[in-house]
């Protein structure tokens, strides 16, 4: 009997996808938001099998415990996969909540929008479990394909067209580089599953084979585009700015995390024996992403561009423990893995919250330019408080959630190990954390201290769509509670440790 329980989340998402298409056909324009509601129900339903899979050991009806291996090792449901699937579903729910009011007020198709968001989430959920090159590539394309369309949703807007075209061209380029790397890996090892690649590369001593080094570099570059690490980041700020803001929120969290999932599983499992190849590359990517992302963010005047560069910088921070993993033994390696996953989990809530606040304020002020936000604290104190909270969380100020992400990052780098490279990396990360505070605090200063611009409409009441309120509430509660009780999310990061322990 095939283990249907193990792929129940994917099956539910697949059925919901088809249901969403049909419900979109039946409904008249006025009730299109119900399509979004269906997608939300589907996502929530898909979360339940995740819970039963996670607690399977305690259930009497459930025979198998531990990780489940399907399709000959190509598809593995372990704790890491469950944690990341859960994160993708939460990201999907929040993205839909951000979109419902936003897309309704636009004069473009609605039903298809929810369908595409759901399709992209499904791809991400598949990626979290995929443990061979082909499944991973299909998952990655399922994440990116709908995202290209979503970026160009406002097709009457030239910026949106520019966003979609840049994203599409870069996405296709990165897919080609990735595929070329994967084909070389397959050619040299004769394996597509990650465990097979790891065994073959160790047995054949491929670490010194130039063609294999080239293959690993190509695969890394392909994923570096997806996570928008410098120098492969050019598309990100333009795409975030041109795309509808909820889509930018999804791209900076969902799509980026999918890239990290691919990078993590590939590097730790398939390329585990050849850590000396990818370690230095990730070190350079981490340093460049942090430094360039933060320095360019200092000069931004548009809030979405600022968040775009900030998300590039955060990709660098996430890479920091990962970059030093190459020199670790098994215990330090697990710490590094834990640091990366925990940072991703916390970053997802902070960044989605920041985007939710930006959507609410941009709707209130009517502009995404930071200058137009002056004096917001006087006529809309709640929104001002929210944006302050999320931006300080991103900067890493205690007691908001961001401090713990930074803490585990630094601990993973300098805690278990003292090499000059680790100390240099930690020093660069520390300097960057300070630079980041400057531009986050500048927005807060504008909101509270600058005068209200003359043409600003300060008298009308502040109206926030109910779904957006819910999204703000979820992310705000998460950012505050995790700040005081970081073990809530650290527990999930801890659970996923096992993936790195096999090396």
């Amino acid at each position: 009997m095939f283990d249907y329980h193990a792929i129940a989340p994917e099956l539910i998402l697949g059925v919901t996808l088809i249901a969403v298409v049909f419900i979109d056909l039946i409904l008249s324009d006025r009730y299109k938001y119900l399509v979004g509601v269906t997608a939300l129900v589907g996502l929530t339903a898909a979360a339940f099998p995740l819970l039963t899979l996670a607690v399977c050991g305690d259930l009497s009806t459930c025979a198998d415990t531990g990780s489940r291996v399907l399709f000959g090792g190509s598809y593995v449901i372990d704790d890491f996969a469950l944690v990341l699937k859960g994160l993708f579903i939460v990201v999907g729910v929040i993205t839909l909540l951000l979109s419902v009011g936003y897309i309704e007020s636009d004069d473009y198709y609605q039903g298809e929008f929810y369908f595409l968001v759901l399709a992209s989430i499904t791809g991400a959920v598949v990626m979290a479990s995929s443990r061979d090159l082909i499944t991973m590539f299909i998952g990655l394309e399922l994440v990116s394909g709908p995202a290209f369309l979503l970026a160009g949703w406002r097709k009457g807007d030239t910026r949106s067209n520019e966003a979609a075209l840049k994203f599409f061209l870069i996405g296709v380029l990165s897919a080609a580089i990735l595929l070329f790397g994967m084909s070389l890996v397959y050619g040299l090892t004769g394996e597509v599953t990650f465990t097979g690649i790891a065994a073959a590369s160790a047995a054949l001593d491929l670490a010194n084979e130039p063609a294999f080094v080239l293959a690993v570099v190509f695969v890394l570059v392909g994923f570096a585009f997806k996570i928008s690490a410098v120098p492969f980041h050019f598309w990100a700020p333009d795409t975030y700015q041109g795309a509808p803001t909820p889509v930018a929120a999804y791209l900076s969290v969902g799509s980026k995390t999918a890239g990290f999932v691919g990078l993590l599983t590939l590097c730790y499992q398939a390329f585990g024996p050849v850590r000396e190849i990818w370690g230095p590359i990730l070190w350079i990517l981490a340093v460049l992403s942090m430094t360039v992302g933060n320095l360019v963010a200092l000069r931004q005047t548009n809030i979405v561009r600022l968040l775009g560069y900030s998300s590039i910088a955060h990709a660098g921070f996430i890479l920091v423990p990962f970059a030093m993993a190459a020199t670790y033994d098994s215990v330090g390696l697990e710490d590094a893995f834990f640091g990366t996953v925990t940072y991703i989990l916390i970053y997802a809530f902070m960044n989605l919250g920041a985007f939710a606040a930006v959507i609410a304020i941009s709707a209130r002020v009517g502009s995404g330019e930071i200058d137009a936000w002056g004096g917001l604290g006087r006529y809309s104190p709640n929104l001002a408080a929210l944006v302050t909270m999320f931006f300080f969380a991103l900067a890493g100020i205690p007691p908001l959630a961001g401090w713990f992400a930074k803490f585990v990052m630094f601990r993973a780098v300098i805690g278990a190990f003292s090499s000059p490279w680790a100390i240099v990396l930690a020093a660069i990360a520390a300097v960057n954390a300070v630079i980041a505070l400057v531009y986050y605090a500048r927005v807060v200063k504008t909101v509270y201290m600058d005068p209200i611009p003359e043409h600003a409409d300060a008298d009308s009441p502040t109206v926030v769509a109910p779904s957006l309120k819910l999204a703000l509430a979820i992310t705000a509660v998460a950012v505050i509670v995790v700040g005081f009780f970081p073990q809530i999310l650290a527990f999930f990061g801890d659970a996923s440790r096992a993936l790195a322990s096999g090396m």
Partner: protein
Amino acid sequence: MTGYFEDYITVAVFAAFGALLVAVSVGASALLRPKNPSATKSQTYECGIDPVGGGWSQTHVRYYIFALLFLIFDVEAVFIFPWAIQLEALGMFALVEMIVFIVILLAGLVYAVRKGVLEWES
């Protein structure tokens, strides 16, 4: 490594003979055939019927949706052929699998029809 490159000698010889064959056959026919050009002979050959329009004529952009739909069902056919050959060996499971696959594709077709994609005038 030398054995690896020696294998390429076969490829090189094969390529040389291929080029030679084309040169000899085309060259010989150019020398031997009678030359009698006419307007009809220099027309573009398009499966036998008279060509319509020039080589740079434009195609209506609406065709691309038909092309996409054609592609989807073309790929479906690619999957169905090997399935049909192995159906008896695979049994009931494969039948249900293919029905699920076709139903999902049909859902796409229903969507396309309802959205008016197949109507030429709009």
